[in-house]
């Protein structure tokens, strides 16, 4: 990160003005308002940011059941971790052996889903460039509550060997609520299995409420995200 960015990082999130949202970034062409003329001559005004995306922020979803039912649900959630097939860095390579005969994570109820709607665990596998952070945020926001984030490798904790890189983030926790970090560069598949096992314990204990933390501190997370993503040409809410 350059010095200017460091300075801006030091600012308190509250001091970030509303104008951050409307910075002088050209909005992508497909997101610009336009008028379409239908075959029957009717004029249709389209503002994609208004029409195609949700306008409301995330809300805190409280466990609405008695404790014993919530415990059952938490047990089911812990035994059925569906990972979003989203590889960000070199750690994505370490995830592959988990699907194959040698380590076979399926026997622990861990599966991979190709769409964020169905997944409930986002594994940030290694260094996260600013460009990828944008996609990771969009994917994370499209997942349904409750959802969990695991940071894999040193890069997600403190930048790791990319500490002084100009385009990777250092501390994943500032941009999305991380439930668990798995250390190492790279962690072996055994370490991943151990990490998932620890995540299961967290979920069973009802401590993995990252989605609610994200909703509670939504403004803080958004301000942090916008501080590093310079070309924020997407809607604020991505679900």
């Amino acid at each position, binding site marked *: 990160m350059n010095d200017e960015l460091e300075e801006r990082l030091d600012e308190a999130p509250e001091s970030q003005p509303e104008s951050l949202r409307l910075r002088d970034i050209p909005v992508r062409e497909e997101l610009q308002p336009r008028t379409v003329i239908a075959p029957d001559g009717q004029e249709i005004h389209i503002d994609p940011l208004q029409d195609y995306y949700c306008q409301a922020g995330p809300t805190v979803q409280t466990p609405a059941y008695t404790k014993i039912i919530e415990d059952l649900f938490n047990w089911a959630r812990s*035994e059925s971790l569906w990972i979003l097939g989203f590889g960000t860095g070199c750690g994505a390579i370490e995830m592959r052996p988990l699907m194959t005969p040698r380590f076979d994570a399926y026997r622990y109820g861990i599966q991979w889903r190709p769409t964020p709607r169905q997944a409930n665990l986002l594994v940030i596998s290694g260094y996260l460039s600013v460009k990828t952070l944008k996609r990771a945020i969009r994917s994370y926001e499209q997942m349904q509550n409750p959802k969990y984030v695991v940071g894999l490798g040193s890069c997600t904790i403190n930048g790791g060997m990319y500490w002084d890189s100009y385009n990777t983030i250092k501390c994943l926790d500032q941009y999305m609520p991380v439930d668990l970090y798995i250390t190492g560069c790279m962690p072996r598949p055994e370490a991943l299995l151990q990490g998932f096992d620890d995540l299961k314990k967290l979920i069973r204990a009802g401590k993995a409420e990252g989605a609610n933390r994200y909703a509670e501190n939504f403004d803080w997370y958004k301000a942090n995200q916008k501080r590093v993503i310079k070309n924020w040409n997407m809607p604020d809410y991505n679900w």
Partner: protein
Amino acid sequence: MSFEWIMIPYSLLTLFIVVNYGLLLTALMQKIGARVGRRYGIPIWQNYIDLIKNYSIRSSITHGPMFYLGPVFRLTGGVGLLLFVPTIYGSEMFSNLSFAGDLILALYFVFFGTLGMALGAAESGHPHAAIGVSRGLSQVTTSELPLALAVFAVALQYETLSVTEIVAAQQGGVMNWTLFTNPLAVTAAMLSFLGSMMRPPFDVVLAPQEIPIGPPTEYHSSYLALMQTNRVIFPIAKIVVYMNLFFGGAASWPVFFLKVFLIYLFSVFVGTVFPRFRVEQSVRWFLIWAVPLGIAAIVLV
């Protein structure tokens, strides 16, 4: 035909047994597939946990009324197919709501869920869903053709449209099964069966590795749970139709479990051995290999 109210709890009991058997059987088949790939595979009770998990997701979003109705239609197709054909032959309890013309109704129900799914997935507005639906509908349409031809051949052969009467005609020994009295029709139907089980080589529509993951791309939480419920009911319901039409039906639950397992295993066996077809390849395959067999079955009957 008089209606007995006791048929309703009896049908629900059938549904209960089939749902549980389906949950276990589907997991078992996944396990067999995993063992072929030298993996250990999922626990046998994994489907129950996934189902509870998906019903317990706290938030869900909708894209409109058809998005809601898609999974409902799909489940209706599965449950309807199951309830309108006799599950256990000769049993008062498990003949369900079968009636004289149920064979035609069954054919409709086989297609019903797919159409509902197409409408629901289309409303989700996701391009992957649209591509998946167009692929799925073209593949299902061609794979249904040989089944329809085979069913007509069987109906002509036994001169009835009632599944119960067709099963009755096959009683009294293995050699009375349609499998041996009309092998062409059964072959055509079994080829069609491969196409509707969502397993390789015909699973390009739903495969996570292809256009991710096809029609259900946008479906999540309870919607997905409804579809999972249907995913365990529908194959069993479809196999029940096959078992009744071609393999002599089942006179008791153990025979039922065994026959359903073996018929299901046929598609898993083919699926683990052969690689995946593209849609245009599978359409051509059905039209070249399965449809002529079905036509021959009708001509020769």
